[in-house]
């Protein structure tokens, strides 16, 4: 709900921004119609807005509108032809590709940047590294006590995002190996609520986007993650996500219908350029190279 409100606020803000830009232009330029819509993941809305703003500065004749709503919403919009670019924090599903083909569309995937997911605990918790398998087993409810993992004899308080979050699904697929969440997992309405609870609850564990984790580094401890029992423990950071040594990371996508052309192509090129990737870093995500 909170997230929704923020998204709504942002959308309104952006819409008014676009309107102001519009009104400044002459009729002639308006008819040039270099108008792009971007829709999808709430995780990527901030990032996409930052790209759009910067792009519009260097291309005054282009108009870009960015809306959130979730990765699923974005892909649905792409299939309905109501958006030029879909932003998605998950990959397109086989079912969605089939649906697109039925409609005569060919979704084209562009990896724009990456996002690491940090697993956070209270700084007072002696545990500082876990394997991906162990983390998955905490969330599925196999391990219920920190002593099973070599920690203190205390029950584990499991914190997760709400099921509408793309991060929830990503975590379930890649960390929990597609198993169901434990019924004891507490579903928090926002990332800040997870940080807040981990700060207060000594024996809680939660997951947040890398950018949020770094911001809250004085309040929570980010766990070092081992890909399996034999591999080294890696701290989540921009560098470790980039060289793929940190295991819990996901690509952030653009989806377009076919290969992008015209203004859409210019925009995609801008996003992948050094200037575009610098914005990625600023926004707290990880550039692709």
């Amino acid at each position, binding site marked *: *709900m909170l997230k929704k409100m923020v998204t709504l606020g942002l959308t309104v803000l952006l819409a008014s921004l676009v309107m102001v830009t519009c009104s400044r232009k002459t009729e002639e330029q308006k008819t040039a119609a270099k108008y792009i819509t971007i829709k999808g993941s709430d995780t990527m809305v901030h990032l996409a807005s930052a790209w759009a703003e910067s792009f519009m500065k260097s291309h005054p004749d282009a108009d870009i509108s960015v809306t959130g709503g*979730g990765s699923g919403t974005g892909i649905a919009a792409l299939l309905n032809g109501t958006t030029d670019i879909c932003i998605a924090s998950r990959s397109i599903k086989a079912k969605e590709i089939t649906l697109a083909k039925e409609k005569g569309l060919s979704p084209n995937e562009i990896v724009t940047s990456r996002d690491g997911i940090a697993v956070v605990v209270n700084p007072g918790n002696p545990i500082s590294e876990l394997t991906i398998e162990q983390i998955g087993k905490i969330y599925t409810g196999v391990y219920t006590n920190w002593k099973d993992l070599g920690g203190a004899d205390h029950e584990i*308080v499991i914190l997760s995002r*709400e099921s*509408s979050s793309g991060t929830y699904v990503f975590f379930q697929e890649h960390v929990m190996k597609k198993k*169901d969440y434990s019924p004891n997992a*507490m*579903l928090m*309405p926002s990332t800040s609520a997870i940080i807040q609870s981990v700060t207060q*609850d000594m024996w809680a564990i939660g997951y947040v986007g890398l950018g949020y984790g770094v911001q809250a580094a004085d309040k929570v401890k980010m766990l070092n993650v081992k890909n399996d029992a034999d591999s080294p423990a890696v701290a989540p950071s921009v560098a470790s996500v980039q060289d793929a040594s940190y295991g819990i990371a996901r690509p952030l996508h653009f989806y377009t219908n076919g290969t992008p052309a015209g203004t859409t192509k210019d925009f995609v090129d801008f996003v992948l350029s050094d200037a575009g990737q610098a914005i990625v870093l600023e926004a707290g995500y990880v550039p692709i190279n």
Partner: protein
Amino acid sequence: MNTWQDKAIHTILVGAASTSILIVLLIFFFLGKEAFSFIWDPGFGHLFHTKWIPVSFKEEIFGIVPLITGSLLVTGLAVVIMVPFGVLGAIYIAEMGTLSERNFLKPFIEILAGIPSVVIGFFGLVVLSPIIKEIFNLNTGLTGLTGAILLAFMAIPTVITVSEDAIQSVPRAYREASLALGASKLQTIFRVIVPAALPGIIAAIMLGTGRVIGETMAVLMVTGNAAKLTINPFDSVRTMTATIAAEMGEVAFGSHHYQALFWVGIFLLIMTFGLNVVAQKFLKKYQMR
């Protein structure tokens, strides 16, 4: 006055008065329409499963039993907390307090009623939940009890205002007769006035309960939202309202999950509707005196 003018005004007033009835009917119709096909596919019985797992790679389960028990647990506790504070407060304000106390207390109670629930929820998350955790020595302060206390805060103004009205409208002759017979002030209040105002007080409690059961934001923020079947007030619970608010945003339109959420809404509506009907019955009884 002309009769046709009379008639026109009459029609307008009837129209205005029946709008709300129309809206209620439309809501029932809309909920029913969206939820209807769930009865055959996947089957009505699926709603009575004891697990709520709406997002799963294996099998999605839409059992609303833990959500109903969650709502009932939080509501029940909130009523237990709200009744003594609300009713005793109303008795004090109506019968015992001086005029200046009354003029001081009433506005504050009304301010409490006006605080947005998201603010109360934030207060609960940051202030109340650490206190609960500390007092009861729990792993986490995000429990059904925390939610219940917040909801009681929110419902107490309703209970006080309506019961105070009920107490005030007990005829003056009752008080005078009781005092003339030699009863003390306390005896008069608890043996004469409160019994006389009882239907009104019960109606007040019912209205307060209706407020509690339908409240969303505050419980979403502080109850932890784990959908488990429990009657332990120190466990995290997921209420029906929180489930709808958290999941409706990104659910695929027309999916089983979407329909199940509408069923949650229907059950919720039936519960609040029932409470209101009972409250109206009591109010009527008390107005007849």
